[in-house]
């Protein structure tokens, strides 16, 4: 009898620690509806068999206050964000695929209580740890910004200071004018890409990469696509990382969701050809990922 009671108690404790108390209704939504979104939704459903996971296009959703309060919303684009922000009432939401710059434009410094913003940007501390690993002698981190992304410098500086790195900012108001870029490359040791689509996009990639390479400066970040284009390396989170990160958050009650967070799971992608041309020793992606992750707990 006693052992049976203990077994139940232990089981209860385990359930309490490792699983949500009850099956949850998880609703993903966005203005777009395409196979990639459906696949993501299906993968999340598979990851959380105990929950009811479904995707519904934004156009088919009622206003947020008419959705049951126990539902957990996962918003996939900015239209969905606008929809959720249209009223304070309604269920809590996890906002995916939003960058710091986009959030700043939409929300300013305001962080609505019902929202948890999950940044698409690579976490500055991780990216800077990657810099330390690949270019231990680099101290001056060159960061291009425009008026929309200037605020990122503060956060970058906070992350850089403990690592002994200096952030060198340079405004780049007109991407057809290379003078600010050249000036920055001259007074910094590398170019650090930030998630600002105005500055780092397919149109500017060629010039950014060729100019920094021409000045024998490596570029780090801002994302995996840029690494494939010729950036030395970047921290990034792919779909699987996002699924795992979401899984972790969905295990928690919405009341303990952070107002904003970077994904818990990530990877590192390096460009071996570029590393060779810049005479940089590049460990394989998995061990770089592990080394960057190790710094997380220090």
């Amino acid at each position, binding site marked *: 009898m006693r052992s049976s009671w203990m077994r139940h108690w232990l089981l209860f404790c385990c359930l309490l620690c490792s699983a949500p108390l009850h099956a949850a209704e998880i609703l993903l939504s966005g203005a777009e509806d395409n196979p*990639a979104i459906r*696949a993501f939704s299906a993968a999340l459903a598979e*990851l959380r068999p105990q929950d009811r996971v479904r995707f519904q296009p934004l156009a088919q959703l009622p206003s947020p206050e008419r959705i049951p309060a126990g539902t957990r919303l996962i918003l*996939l684009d900015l239209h969905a964000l606008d929809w959720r922000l249209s009223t304070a009432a309604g269920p809590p939401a996890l906002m995916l695929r939003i960058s710091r710059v986009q959030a700043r434009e939409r929300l300013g410094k305001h962080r609505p209580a019902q929202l948890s913003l999950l940044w698409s940007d690579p976490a500055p501390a991780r990216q800077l740890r990657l810099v330390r690993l690949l270019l231990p002698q680099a101290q001056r981190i060159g960061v291009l910004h425009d008026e929309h992304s200037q605020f990122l410098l503060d956060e970058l500086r906070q992350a850089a200071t403990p690592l002994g790195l200096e952030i060198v900012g340079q405004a780049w108001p007109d991407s*057809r004018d290379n003078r600010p870029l050249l000036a920055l490359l001259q007074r910094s040791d590398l170019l650090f890409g930030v998630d600002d689509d105005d500055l780092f996009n*397919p149109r500017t990639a060629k010039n950014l990469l060729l100019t920094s390479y021409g000045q024998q400066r490596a570029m780090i970040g801002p994302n995996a696509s840029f690494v494939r284009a*010729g950036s030395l390396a970047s921290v990034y989170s*792919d779909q699987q*990382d996002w699924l795992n990160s979401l899984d972790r958050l969905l295990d928690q009650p919405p009341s303990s969701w952070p107002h904003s967070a970077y994904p818990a799971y990530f990877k590192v992608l390096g460009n071996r050809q570029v590393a060779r041309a810049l005479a940089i020793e590049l460990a394989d992606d998995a061990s770089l990922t592990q080394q960057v992750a190790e710094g997380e707990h220090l």
Partner: protein
Amino acid sequence: MAINPRASLPLSLLALLATGEVLGDDLFDNHHAMPEVLTATRLKQAPAAVPGSVTVLDSALIKASGARDIPELLRLVPGMMVGYRNGNQATANYHGSNVTEARRLQVLIDGRSVYRPGLASVDWTDIPVAIEDIERIEVFRGPNTVSYGANALMGVINILTRHPLDSRGTRLKTTQGQRGIHDWYASHGSAWQDGALRLSLSGLQDSGFDHDQFGRDYRDSRRLNRFNLSASQQLDSRHSLAWQLAAKEGSNQRPYGYASVFDEQIAPGDDGSDVKARDYAGSLRWTLDFSPEHSLYLQSSAQHWERKQVWRACEAEVAFSPELGELWDLNPFYVVKFGDYLTQLKNNPTNAVLPPGTAREQALATAVRAQLFGGGAAPVCGDVNQSMRETRYDFEVQDTLSLSDDLRLLSGLGYRYDHADSETYFNGALSNHIWRLFGHLEWQLGAHWLVQGGAMLEDDRLSGSSLTPRIAVNYLITPRHGLRAVYSEAVRSPDMYENNVDWRYRVRNLQPQAFGQSSATYFARSRGPGDLDQEIMRSRELGYNGSFADVGISLDIKLFYDEIHGMISEPLRNDRFFPSNANSMRFSGAETQIDWQLSHADRLRLSYAYLDFSASSHLDRRLSARHSGSAGWLRDWGQGWSSALFYYGADQLNQYRFERLDLRVAKRITIGSAALELAGVMQQRLDDEPLTWQENNYDERQLLYFSAELEF
């Protein structure tokens, strides 16, 4: 990556299986339109992996040096010997050799060779590029005909101008100083969606050396103006175009270019024999990126050199005697002996005997003697024309193919047409067609070994065909530290003048007339043999290149043993010019260059070359210093102040020691969005020697000049 302990094995497998699909259509990696930019075809080798010795003069160094023209910058390159024939004729030779000609160096501006085909020279003063437009200079120290074609015998100077996209805005600069320095530069760059353009105009002026060895004024000033237009246009994601137009006009003073051989008392007919020099160039490069692994470019260029040199010279009438000309053609050595006989006739007539020779030689000599005593010693003056026009068309296709991550093939085909037109030098026009085919393979064997080799096949219509191989093995201790062993062969084709010169002066407007003619041919003439072979160089090199990133040191060491066979050593002259492939030369030694970024504010740069050499011709022993080098300290003092101190030294350049200390101090002032830089340069010679030649002297050992540059 944090491992999710809850993901079951089947789920992880599922995720892995899904990865391929997800990567192609990942909700969180949505930059599918991103082009691949730094591809295998665009990336260059890291310094430790380069199959040879390279010195890069970057824009910071170029600016800090305060140099006004390119040859002065080349003093920063280990083993580069820089000399001056006069104030406006610099000669730069890697490892030296001949002091008057620099025939064995290839010089390129954005891939366009500026080595003049006609007279086998590089006119540094006349190259239509302003130093302010130069982004960097890459000097390949050693033979590399595989990559750069014939004439890249002892080295290659690759001058790269600033990309138009990096030149946006306006720059205005003026430089004024002692020794008649008046330089100016103005440029404006603009950019649009997919292209950019820069227009620059510039001028340079100075008075050259002050006095010759006799203390007389030296006529060697220069004045020039240049025009440059450089543009780039991205046509679409795979095609891009870059084109340039350049022109230069100017005047280079020369001292009076003739001394009478018959009577030293005959007065000069003119103040000097100045050259009006005009250069025109246009080039177009079309780059096609087939894929990240395969690209091709097509470059074509057209160039025209115009040297107008006409002056009035005076000589005894007999110099235009048809009989004397015939005698010279028969046997120039007899004419030399006949000249000695004439001198003897003047000083000691009783012992003078007409030199023995064939009956025809003696008959002609007798006739000339009669002309001389029958009034032929009287001076006549006429217009000497030493002008020349040269034209070059050059096409090159180069294909870069990355066969795998570790194997890259560069191959290409080139065609060059050279045309020289000069009544004096070629008795008309002369042209040459040159084809070349080249291939170069880079093969990375694991993390440490790199084997690079190639060959060039060249066919030169005037001097035949040649095949030159090149092989290099690099051992990379780490990506930043590499050892290299290089063997290369290179050729230099004899140039038009060496092989095919037909040098004769047709003097016009003779007053009084010579033998009843107002236009006559000067007796001395020379002809190239037409059957000269190519010079062959064999070079062996061991080297180390390392970068100690933690302390900011880059270091390169080179040990070399080079031999040139079949060397054509005879300088250009119009009497007794008998070039041959009879000479040879050998160089061995060691070179090093160190670049040390001490801090963000301080940079040290050292270069040193020790050269041991032997040459069968005394003419090739002139411009090779045994010890030469440079030392520089660049400092940023903050608040816009910066300074650079350079020392240059060579123990003997044509027997003269050369040591100089240069100091440049600059202050940059920001005014709104504009910037003004004020700079002063002081050069202090540390020796009392002439520069290269005894004629080349300055009144003062010190030179000062100042510049002001506005950017907005």
